[in-house]
């Protein structure tokens, strides 16, 4: 005598709206870190990077933005996020203090290959952080990504969507 075979037919689902199926996904977020430029002369030189953001997430005020930031700005962002949010913030590429010592054979921290390594790691860092649902609630992240300049005297707060 055979056991009855279990009913494994799929549960009913609403058919998908074609706009939803073929339209742009609502999770579009692209961040590029590029165009490193070294500004200044001699001992006061520093490198800035272009941060270009394209998105359709409603939590970002601007759907497209482009700002320039330096390594110490990234350090500021990381410490703000660690303090203000519950996110486990990924590490930044190293400070490269060694490279800042004199009498080096190469260009130190202005060496092309070093800058490229750092650029790539900063891009990975930003993509990881900006895509985190909790980090997206932090004012410091939005200021870093989309405001003209970073105001380090700001008041930390959470973004609330209407």
């Amino acid at each position: 005598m055979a056991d009855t075979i279990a009913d494994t037919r799929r549960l009913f689902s609403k058919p998908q709206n074609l706009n939803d199926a073929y339209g742009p996904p609502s999770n579009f977020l692209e961040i590029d870190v590029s165009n490193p430029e070294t500004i200044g002369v001699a001992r006061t030189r520093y490198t800035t990077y272009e941060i270009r953001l394209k998105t359709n997430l409603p939590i970002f005020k601007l759907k497209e933005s482009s700002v320039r930031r330096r390594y110490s700005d990234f350090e500021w962002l990381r410490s703000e996020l660690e303090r203000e949010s519950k996110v486990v913030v990924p590490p930044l590429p190293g400070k490269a203090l060694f490279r800042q010592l004199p009498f080096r054979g190469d260009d130190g921290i202005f060496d092309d290959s070093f800058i490229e390594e750092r650029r790539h790691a900063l891009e990975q860092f930003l993509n990881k952080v900006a895509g985190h649902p909790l980090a997206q609630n932090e004012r410091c992240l939005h200021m870093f990504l989309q405001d003209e300049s970073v105001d380090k005297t700001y008041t930390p707060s959470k973004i609330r969507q209407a």
Partner: protein
Amino acid sequence: MSFFGFGQSADIDIVLNDAETRKKAEHKSEDGRKDKYFLFYDGETVSGKVNVTLKYPGKRLEHNGIKIEFIGQIELYYDRGNHHEFVSLVKDLARPGELTQSQTFDFEFTHVEKPYESYTGQNVKLRYFLRATVSRRLNDVSKELDIVVHTLSSYPELNSSIKMEVGIEDCLHIEFEYNKSKYHLKDVIVGKIYFLLVRIKIKHMEIDIIKRETTGTGPNVYHENDTIAKYEIMDGAPVRGESIPIRLFLAGYEMTPSMRDINKKFSVRYYLNLVLIDEEERRYFKQQEITLWRKGDIVRKSMSHQAIIASQRFEGSSNPEKSQTQSNEEDDS
């Protein structure tokens, strides 16, 4: 004196009367080995023979009594000294005296209550066994025979589906549904995940079955989690309005029925864990408890027509005519 190696000794052997016909079930032991033991259900009689074989024929064996016990006990690994016996029956086979030759004793434990299922876990073990003992002044001779007990349940009267909407505000909203809340061990989990809002980049989604063994009471409660199964149900990024089906056959996994507060000593519970993983390896999950139960392999012949229809209805067979003909065939045979 037996410790000089000259004294008489005996070997004990326990044989069940229905050893030829009784089914055996596999059961994993503490060290992971799988062995087969005789399978018993609650209320069944345990009967058989105890063979006491003298090591040196011709020599007498003096003893303080021969008995057989049927024991059901719970053993917590962190408290090995204290066995908690919840079933303890004893039958005296011989009064103190002496055996002049090997002898066989009959025993019967009638309609023994076996309220819980045999279980060997990470921190606790529940077992049933027969123990025959020849008591002696200095050292007893005993032999144990382990048996396995399964607890059977009937189809639950109420078996509602699990349906819930969960998510992270403005980031990810899903509605998940599982067709039942109580599944038998050879059942199929049929469900679906419906995406209402997707603002994160999902890489894949899986469903895990987690077994949680809880031992101890009050402040000394200890949970042991074990992921029994990991089953990927989606690979790729879903969008709003998409529905992902779930079909997970439970027969392929080693699971026990859910056990709730067994003799106030331990519990074994099962959870379905729905896990979504995004492009940055972040995990989003929702755990939901399910109840597992053991279905009996009852021969359909003995079931009434009504009972057959009722049990098929729970399986979801949609064709009432089909079940009608099936039972007609059974009535004829």
